[in-house]
């Protein structure tokens, strides 16, 4: 016989009640775990993806849309900007570097991004096989793209207009896969990288392109295959890194007031987005806490009412030599074991749900979510649950401590 065995037998004697209490608590904990996993991973991805980008410049429109489109590649472009204007901005004295992006096409939902090698080095992307894109219509695939589309080095494919799988197909020019990147855990995993002029080629009227064949005499800073004085070419956006902190004050104002373009800061727009999403997350979190509170209450009631039935048991145990503190300890242990088991199950359940979600939904995989990581908050949850268990069993335990053996035994 031992305390653990005694508690186990008391649990067994009330299977349904015990099961319900554990279920209630684990549901609440699972919900919180899921929110923590989601929030943390999303935030990590976002900071990773916007690392090295201080400012995004694009056509006027919604700044949030511009960020979602140019940094996270989940929204449509606000429009185009003139290459000449972008070039001028790239030469600005407050700009450390500027990376051009030309968007518009996708393949099976994965975006084709026309850019230069500065973009891949921004995310420290490495080749897994093949080579970097060099000439027009050559592409290098992100690791998730290669995995999900089953494209290999040397394969040809046609891109489609827009971001959906069934957009208008550009079947005049086929892309060829030059290389595949290693997994980087950033947005690059979901992109198809190519030159800017490839994107132009896909969208240009097929005949008017012959003039572009000879090399330019004074090439543009951003796209070297084009004359700096070109007044027709457009790109979608420009990713900018500041040269010094003063730029953070001067550059956005300069762009927004002096040019026809707009500038948006990823950090600021993300903070804004999170306050918007935060309301929903807070509501869910609140609901989870209500569940946990109810389960705490339920555990308290279960212990308190079973105490009434067990008063005689306790008096008998005292008559057999049990000390007051042993009874106290038994009740406290009972409560905390219950919450510990509930919380552990809840944590496991939270991870399981995310794992199933990631496994079944392409979106989960694309977002780079994983069920295999643990955060410090989860340890806090576990400790917190045990504290909750102790708290809920405190009053019943004090009552057990105070049981008057003589009165209980004599009243029978």
């Amino acid at each position, binding site marked *: 016989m031992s305390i653990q065995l005694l508690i186990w037998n008391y649990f*067994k*004697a009330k299977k349904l009640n015990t099961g319900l209490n554990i279920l209630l608590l684990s549901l609440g904990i699972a919900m919180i775990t899921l929110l923590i996993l989601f929030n943390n991973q999303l935030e990590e991805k976002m900071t990773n993806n916007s690392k090295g980008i201080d400012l995004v410049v694009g056509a006027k429109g919604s700044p949030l849309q511009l960020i979602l489109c140019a940094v996270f590649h989940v929204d449509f472009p606000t429009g185009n900007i003139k290459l000449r204007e972008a070039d001028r901005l790239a030469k600005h004295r407050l700009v450390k570097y500027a990376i051009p992006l030309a968007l518009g096409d996708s393949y099976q939902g994965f975006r084709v991004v026309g850019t230069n090698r500065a973009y891949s080095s921004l995310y420290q992307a490495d080749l897994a096989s093949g080579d970097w894109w060099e000439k027009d219509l050559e592409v290098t695939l992100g690791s998730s793209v290669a995995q999900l589309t089953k494209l290999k080095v040397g394969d040809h494919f046609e891109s489609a207009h827009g971001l959906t799988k069934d957009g208008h197909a550009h079947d005049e020019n086929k892309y060829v896969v030059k290389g595949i990147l290693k997994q980087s855990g950033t947005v690059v995993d979901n992109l198809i990288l190519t030159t800017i002029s490839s994107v132009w080629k896909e969208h240009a009227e097929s005949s008017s392109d012959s003039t572009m064949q000879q090399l330019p005499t004074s090439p543009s800073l951003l796209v070297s295959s084009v004359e700096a004085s070109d007044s027709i070419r457009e790109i979608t956006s420009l990713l900018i890194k500041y040269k010094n902190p003063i730029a953070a004050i001067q550059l956005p104002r300069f762009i927004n007031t002096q040019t026809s373009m707009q500038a948006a800061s990823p950090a600021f727009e993300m903070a804004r987005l999170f306050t918007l999403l935060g309301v929903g997350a807070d509501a869910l979190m609140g609901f989870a806490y209500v569940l946990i509170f109810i389960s705490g209450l339920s555990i308290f009631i279960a212990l308190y009412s079973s105490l009434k039935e067990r008063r005689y*048991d306790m008096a*008998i*145990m005292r008559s*057999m*030599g*049990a000390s007051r503190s042993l009874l106290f300890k038994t009740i406290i242990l009972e409560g905390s074991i219950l919450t510990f088991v509930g919380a552990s199950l809840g944590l496991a359940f939270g991870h399981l749900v995310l794992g199933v979600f990631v496994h079944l939904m392409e979106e989960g995989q694309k977002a780079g979510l994983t069920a295999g990581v643990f955060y410090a908050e989860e340890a806090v949850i576990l400790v917190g649950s045990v504290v909750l268990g102790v708290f809920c069993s405190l009053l019943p335990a004090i009552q057990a401590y105070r049981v008057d053996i003589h009165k209980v035994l004599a009243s*029978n």
Partner: protein
Amino acid sequence: MIATQGLTHRYHSKKGVLSHEIVFPDLAVERGESFLLLGNSGSGKTTLLHLLGGLLRPLTGKIEIEKIDIASLSETELDRMRGRQIGFVFQRNHLISALTVKNNLLMAPFLAGEKQHEERVDLVLDELGLREKKNAMIFELSQGQAQRVAIARAIINKPSLILADEPTSALDDKNCDQVIELLNKVAMENNAALIVATHDHRLKSRLKNQIIL
């Protein structure tokens, strides 16, 4: 083994206005002796038994168990002494229903802080004819069987004093005979003092030493 001197106890009525004192006769019981404590309901039999077992502290007077004044013991020491020296048998509801017969018996050495020997459980159950009930749940037992399990639990730690409170009043004649005989037998075998408090007249002829309250 156990001796009392000038024990009194004060009963409080609900509002605390009416209270009355009860004076108990002095007792001296040696190992191997058995006593019957007779009296009507409300005469203080249970109270005296609880005083003797250290479940209740007396208003005045002295109780010595193995020459130790139990008033001098701390609460924890008293719990310890009770677990090792005294075996209780109550009228009913005396077993922990969430546990099997075996675990009910093992509770006694566990709570008294002594080693738990399963052979001892087997031996005691054998002696009381309960061998096949070892792994039974409490609700599967008849009242007579339950009372025998309670006796088994009372003697498993080889106590020097067995206190039984109305052990037979819920039983029929046949079980009553069996239980009092067993109590007597195990007390003799363990060389323990036995005190049985009862208003059950069937027992009068069974124990010679009688105290009437």
